[in-house]
C-alpha cells in the first residue's frame, strides 16, 4: 500500500511549475516536499471545495498545469464537481484523489461507501483519462506520461490511512494562512500585488 509521504514525493518530482491545491492529510506531506511553495495553496477553511478552486485556477490560467490533491471524503461531499470539471474539460487539470476509505482528520471513521472507485466515476463523468494506483512503483513510472497528456485526468491513489489522534488546531494565525496563500498565489500568477486585506483573518 502507498503512503502519503511517498505519493507526495513522486508527485512533486513530476509537477514542474504546476500550481497545487491541497486539502486534508496530504497537505502536511506536500508541504514537506514541495519545491514551489509560492505555487501551493491549501483549502483548509473551505470544506470539500479544493476541486472547485482548482477548476477556477485551471480555467483562469489555461497555460499552466493545475494539480489538485483531493481526498475521497472531500470529493464525496463535492461529487458534482466531477461533472462540472468534465463539462468544462480544462486540458491543464490533474485531479489526484487520495483514497483510504476513512475520514483521517476526524479520527478514522469510515466514509459512507469505502468501495467507491473514483477513477471509474471520473471516467463515467467524462474525464479524458482516469487511473488507479495501489503501488508506488506503478504510480512513479506512470505519472510523467499522465501529466504530459491533456486532461482533465483523475489519478486515484490507494493510500494507507493515517487517522489523526488529536483535533485540528484552530488559531487566528492558522486561519490566516489560507487568505495569505491565496494572495501570494495571485501575486505570483498575475504579477500584481493588488488584493488587499479583507475578512476576519487579515
Amino acid at each position: 500500500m502507498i503512503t502519503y509521504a511517498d505519493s507526495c514525493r513522486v508527485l512533486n518530482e513530476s509537477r514542474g511549475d504546476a500550481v497545487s491545491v491541497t486539502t486534508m492529510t496530504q497537505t502536511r506531506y506536500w508541504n514537506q516536499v514541495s519545491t514551489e511553495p509560492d505555487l501551493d495553496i491549501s483549502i483548509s477553511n473551505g470544506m470539500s471545495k479544493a476541486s472547485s478552486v482548482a477548476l477556477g485556477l485551471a480555467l483562469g490560467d489555461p497555460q499552466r498545469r493545475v494539480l489538485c490533491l483531493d481526498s475521497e471524503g472531500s470529493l464525496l461531499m463535492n461529487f458534482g464537481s466531477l461533472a462540472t470539471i468534465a463539462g468544462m474539460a480544462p486540458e491543464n487539470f490533474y485531479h489526484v484523489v487520495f483514497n483510504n476509505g476513512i475520514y483521517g482528520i476526524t479520527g478514522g471513521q469510515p466514509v459512507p461507501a469505502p468501495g467507491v472507485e473514483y477513477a471509474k466515476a471520473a471516467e463515467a463523468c467524462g474525464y479524458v483519462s482516469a487511473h488507479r494506483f495501489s503501488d508506488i512503483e506503478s504510480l512513479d513510472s506512470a505519472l510523467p506520461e499522465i501529466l504530459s497528456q491533456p486532461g482533465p485526468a483523475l489519478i486515484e491513489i490507494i493510500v494507507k490511512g493515517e487517522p489523526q489522534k488529536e483535533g485540528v488546531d484552530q488559531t487566528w494565525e492558522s486561519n490566516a494562512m489560507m487568505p495569505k496563500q491565496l494572495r501570494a498565489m495571485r501575486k505570483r500568477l498575475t504579477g500584481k500585488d493588488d488584493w488587499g486585506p479583507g475578512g476576519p483573518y487579515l
Partner: protein
Amino acid sequence: MINGILHPKNVVDQLVQQGVSHYVTLPDSETAHMYEALMAEPSITVVPVSREGEAIPVAAGLFIAGQNPVISIQNAGLYEAGDSLRGLALGVGLPLVMFIGYRGHNRKGDTPDSAATILEPFLHLWRVDYFVVESDEDLDRVPLAFDRAARTNQPVAVAIGTEYAKEETAEIVTGGAG
C-alpha cells in the same frame, strides 16, 4: 409580481462594462433568459456548475488566476452554498459580486415562498451588503455593487427581484412596437 421589466441584455451590458470575464452559474427560473443573452456575448465565458456550493470556490480560483468573475445562483442555492460563502468569500476577503435570484419576491411581504422571506435577513445575518434590482431602472446599482466589493474586499450581492424578460419582449419594448 414586480412592476417593471428587466432585460437580460442590459444586465449583460453592465457586466461587459465592468470587465467581467466569467459568469459562474447554476440556472434558475428567474434567470433563465439571462443564460441565453450571455451565450450571445463573446467576451464572457459561462461556467455552469452542478451545485450552487461550487460557484464561489470556482470564482475564487478564477480571481486568483487574475480573472474577473461573477456568480449567479438562486436564493435557495445561496443557502446551500453557505459554507462556501463563509470560508471562501467572507473568510478570505474575496471581492465578488454575486447575482442572487430573489425567488418569491413580490414586495408585499406576505409571499408564501420562504426562499424569499429569508433572503434579506440571511444577508444581514451573514453581513453581506446587497442591492436589489427589480427592473432596468435599477441597473445603476450594479456598478455600485462592483465598487463596494472592490473597496471592501468582501462579497456583495445583487438580488434580482424579478424574472428576466424574454429577449423578444425586450425588442418589442425597446422598439416601441408594443
